[in-house]
C-alpha cells in the first residue's frame, strides 16, 4: 500500500509544481527575455510541461496501483512497486537537474537528455509485470482493466518510438523525423488517456455500485473506439506538414468517428443530470462530473480542429493550447483529483470546511473557463494574422494581444491559487490520515 500512496503523493506534488511553474512561466512570457536568470521562459516551460504531464501520468499509475491493491496483491509484487517508485524518483531527479542546469537536448514535451528516459521505460516494464501478476485473468477483466492494460502497453511502445530520432536513419530525414515525432506526441496522449479514463470508469463503477457497468457491450465499444483513435488519429497534428497524404486522410476519417462519443454524451444527457444531483456532495464524483463537462467542450474543439480546412487556420495558434490545456487540466487533472479524493478519503471536519472546499472547486472551474477564454482570444488574434486578415509584422500582432495576455496572467494566477490549494490539501491530508485499506495477500 505504501508504494501506491507514495506514488500518489509524488503525482500530487508534480501537479502542484506544474501549476506553480506555469504561474511563473506566464509572467516570464510577458515580462522578461526567454533566458533571463536561472528561471527564464526557456527553463520554465519545460519545467511546467514535464511536471504537469508526469503528474497526470503518475496520478494514473498511482490510482491503478491503489485500485489493484484494494483487491489482491501477491507479496512479491510489493518489491516490484518499490522498484517502480525508485525508478521514477531517479528519473525525476535527473530531469529536474537537467532543466535547472540548462542541459537540454530533447524535444518538445521531453526536453531532458534522452538518458533520463531510460528509467521511465524500465519502470513501465516493471509496472506491466506488476499489473499482469495482480490484475487477475484477462478473461474476466472489466473494461477499465483493459483500458489500464492498453495504457501501460501502448505508453511503453510509443515511448520507445519517441527516441527513434537518436538513430541517424530517422534523424537525417526531416519529414519522416517530424512525422514520427508528432505520431508519438499524438498517440502517447491517447495511451495516457486510456489509464485516466479507465480510472474514471473504475470510480464510476465503485460509486454507483453497479459492477455490471464495466462488462457492458457499449462500454467495450467505446473503449475500442478510443483505442482506434489512439492508433490512427494523431495525423491531425500535422495536416500542414508535407508528409504522405494518406496519413492526413486516415487521420481525418478516423477523427470523425469521435462524433459518436459526443452524440452519445448528449443522448445520455438526462441520465447525466440525474447522476449529478444524486452524487453531488461526494467529492470524487464532483471532480468526475467536472471532467465530464470539460470532455464536452474539449471534444467539440478537437472535432473541429480535426477538420483539415478548419485546422489550417487554428494550427500554430493558441487555440491548439486551449485544447491541450483544456484536456490536461479540465479532464486529466480533474480525473486524477477524483481518484486522489477517492483513495485518500479526506474527512471534512465541519460543514464550513466542506463549503469552503466546494467554493474552491467552483472558483477553479470558473477560472479555468476564463483562462481558456483568454487563450482563445490570443489564438483568434494570431489566426487572423496568419490568414492575412489583419496586417502588420509578428511583433505588432503580439502587441495587439496584450489585453488577452494580461487576462491570461490574472486567470492563470487564480487557477494556480484555487486548483493548487485543492492539490496541497490532498497532499497534506495524505500524511495526516493513514489510508485504511485491507490487503489480502495470496502468498
Amino acid at each position, binding site marked *: 500500500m505504501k508504494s501506491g500512496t507514495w506514488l500518489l503523493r509524488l503525482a500530487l506534488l508534480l501537479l502542484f509544481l506544474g501549476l506553480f511553474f506555469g504561474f511563473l512561466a506566464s509572467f516570464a*512570457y510577458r515580462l*522578461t*527575455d*526567454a533566458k*533571463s536568470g536561472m528561471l*527564464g*521562459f*526557456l527553463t520554465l*516551460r*519545460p519545467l511546467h510541461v514535464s511536471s504537469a504531464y508526469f503528474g497526470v501520468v503518475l496520478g494514473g499509475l498511482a490510482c491503478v496501483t491503489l485500485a489493484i491493491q484494494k483487491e489482491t496483491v501477491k507479496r512479491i509484487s510489493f518489491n516490484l512497486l518499490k522498484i517502480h517508485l525508485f525508478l521514477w524518483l531517479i528519473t525525476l531527479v535527473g530531469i529536474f537537474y537537467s532543466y535547472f542546469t540548462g542541459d*537540454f*537536448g530533447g*524535444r*518538445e514535451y521531453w*526536453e531532458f537528455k534522452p538518458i533520463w528516459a531510460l528509467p521511465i521505460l524500465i519502470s513501465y516494464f516493471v509496472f506491466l509485470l506488476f499489473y499482469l501478476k495482480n490484475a487477475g485473468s*484477462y*478473461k474476466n*477483466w472489466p473494461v477499465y482493466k*483493459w483500458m489500464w492494460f492498453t495504457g501501460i502497453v501502448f505508453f511503453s511502445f510509443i515511448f520507445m518510438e519517441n527516441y*527513434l530520432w537518436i538513430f*541517424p536513419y530517422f534523424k*537525417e*530525414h*526531416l*519529414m*519522416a523525423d*517530424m*512525422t*514520427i515525432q508528432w*505520431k508519438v506526441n499524438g498517440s502517447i496522449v491517447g495511451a495516457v488517456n486510456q489509464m485516466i479514463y479507465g480510472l474514471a470508469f473504475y470510480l464510476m463503477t465503485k460509486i454507483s455500485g453497479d459492477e455490471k457497468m464495466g462488462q457492458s457491450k457499449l462500454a467495450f465499444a467505446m473503449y*475500442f473506439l478510443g*483505442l*482506434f483513435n489512439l*492508433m*490512427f488519429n494523431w495525423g491531425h497534428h*500535422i*495536416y*500542414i*506538414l*508535407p*508528409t*504522405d497524404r494518406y*496519413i*492526413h*486522410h*486516415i487521420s*481525418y476519417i478516423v477523427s470523425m468517428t469521435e462524433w459518436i462519443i459526443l452524440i452519445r454524451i448528449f443522448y445520455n444527457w438526462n441520465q447525466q443530470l440525474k447522476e449529478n444531483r444524486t452524487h453531488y456532495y461526494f467529492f470524487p464524483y464532483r471532480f468526475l462530473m467536472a471532467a465530464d463537462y470539460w470532455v464536452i467542450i474539449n471534444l467539440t474543439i478537437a472535432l473541429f480542429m480535426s477538420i*483539415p*480546412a*478548419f485546422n*489550417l487556420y487554428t*494550427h*500554430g495558434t*493558441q487555440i491548439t*493550447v486551449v485544447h491541450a490545456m483544456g484536456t490536461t487540466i479540465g479532464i486529466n487533472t480533474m480525473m486524477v483529483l477524483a481518484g486522489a479524493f477517492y483513495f485518500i478519503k479526506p474527512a471534512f471536519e465541519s460543514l464550513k470546511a466542506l463549503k469552503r472546499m466546494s467554493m474552491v472547486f467552483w472558483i477553479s472551474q470558473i477560472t479555468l473557463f476564463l483562462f481558456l477564454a483568454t487563450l482563445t482570444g490570443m489564438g483568434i488574434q*494570431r489566426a487572423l494574422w*496568419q*490568414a*492575412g486578415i489583419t496586417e502588420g509584422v*509578428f511583433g505588432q500582432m503580439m502587441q495587439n494581444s496584450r489585453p488577452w495576455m494580461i487576462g491570461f496572467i490574472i486567470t492563470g494566477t487564480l487557477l494556480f491559487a484555487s486548483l493548487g490549494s485543492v492539490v496541497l490539501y490532498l497532499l497534506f491530508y495524505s500524511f495526516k490520515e493513514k489510508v485504511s485499506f485491507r490487503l489480502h495477500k495470496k502468498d
Partner: protein
Amino acid sequence: MPLIKVSPLKIFITLSVLFLIYSFTIYLKPLREKDHQKIAYQKQSASGKDVWQKHNCHTCHQLYGLGGYLGPDLTNVTAKPGYSDVFLKAIISNGISQMPAFDLTNREMEDLLVFLKAMNETGTANPRHYSTQINGTFTLDNLE
C-alpha cells in the same frame, strides 16, 4: 439472428497488428525517399536540428506550426526577403526583443542555418498558400 461474439483480446490483437503495420510503413519512409537530398547535406541539417534541440528553440519558435508561441514560425525564415545568413547570424548572436543572445560556435551556427534552409526546402507553412476544399480538406496552391 445471434450476434457473433468476439473476445476483447482478439479485437485488441487485430487492432494492434494494424497499428504496427501502419507504424512500420511510416518507419520505412526514409528508405522510400532515400535520394531526396545529398547525404552530406542531410547529415549537416541533422546536426543543425541537434543545435535547435540543445538550445530549446522550439520553446519559443515553431516549425510547421509546431512549437512555442513567443516567437514567429521559422519554417520558411531563410526564404524571407532580407533574411540573409549574415542577418540571421546577427539576430542569433545578439538577440532581438524578448529573444536572448545565443553563444553558438561557428560550426553550430552553420549547422543551424543549414537545418533552417533544409526545412524551407520541404514546403511552406504559410496558411495563405493553401486553399480549402468543399470536403473539408485543403490543397497547396500553385506558387509559381
